[in-house]
């Protein structure tokens, strides 16, 4: 199935908010979502945006059961480390359940990794809930390291060769 990744536009924010809420439901914390379409728009399309977002879109003939063509998103921003300089932080990665298993999540993540490399980032970091075995397996399959198990935090990072490989669309070691 053809799926296009593109930067989120201001008019996509309503769809992104819909998917943010779906992800929060999955994470069993739906009551914590306070964001609105308007705030997301203001914060993402200001002079110095506070986040960046990619959306995954399918053609109209493959739209979801509820009629959506925007079926996934990756929300990220740049962070900084005194140790390694620029990092790319993947805050949300989500694909609607009926579109999973088609490589869309991997495409989103690869694109974010690519953006990281283009911007001189040395690491990608993100958090995962400790019971989300499927996500942990997915990320470890791409060379991600669990820093919590190793050092006492719960952040995952992708760095150096594993990151570059992901940016090239290859599996990490």
């Amino acid at each position, binding site marked *: 199935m053809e799926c296009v990744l593109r930067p989120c536009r201001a008019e996509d924010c309503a769809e992104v908010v819909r998917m943010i809420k779906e992800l929060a439901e999955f994470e069993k914390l739906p009551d914590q979502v306070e*964001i609105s379409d308007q705030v997301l728009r203001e914060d993402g399309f200001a002079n110095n945006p*506070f986040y960046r977002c990619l959306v995954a879109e399918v053609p109209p003939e493959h739209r979801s059961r509820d009629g959506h063509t925007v079926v996934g998103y990756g929300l990220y921003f740049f*962070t*900084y480390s*005194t*140790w390694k300089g620029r990092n790319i932080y993947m805050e949300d990665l989500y694909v609607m359940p009926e579109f999973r298993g088609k490589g869309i999540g991997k495409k989103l993540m690869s694109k974010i990794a690519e953006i990281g490399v283009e911007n001189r980032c040395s690491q990608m970091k993100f*958090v995962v809930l400790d019971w989300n075995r499927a996500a942990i397996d997915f990320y470890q399959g791409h060379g991600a390291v669990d820093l919590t198990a190793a050092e006492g*935090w*719960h952040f995952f990072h992708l760095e150096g060769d594993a990151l570059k490989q992901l940016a090239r669309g290859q599996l990490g070691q």
Partner: protein
Amino acid sequence: RGDSSSFIPQCDFCPDRLGLIHSITFFFTLAINSQVLILDLLEDGFGEHPFYHCLIAEVPKEGQIGSSCIVGYAMYYFTYDPWIGKLLYLEDFYVMEPYRGLGIGSEILKRLSQIAIKTNCSCMHFLVVIWNKPSIEYYVRRGALDLSTEEGWHLFRIDKENLLRMASGE
């Protein structure tokens, strides 16, 4: 010494820009053996799109009028939580050992809280290693909450009520 500490916010407001940049570079190499090139540090902090901001704590040098030395710093940036919006993320927070216990750290946290509120951040986030008991106690005492124990992540956040409290110096 503690009484005469002053705080220079990010470079925009500092008259001695070069001095501040050199001091930040010094701290980045002091705190950890940084792998960041100095040119990258300068561009990333003081270029068109800053990736980080710094608060510096300095005290006057004894016996040298008009001269000061840097004794602490905080490095922070803004992150985003799609559920609640902008956050202030505290990446580094450091006071040189001879200058601890003088309230410099508390003053830095207070200024940071003020910045967070002024910029409409919902809260301040930071990471602490779970076996670092003195640090955990330091932050919990100031109203910080361990999100990892409650929900399964390992993050600390400081909420609006405690941010306001810290900003007002309580």
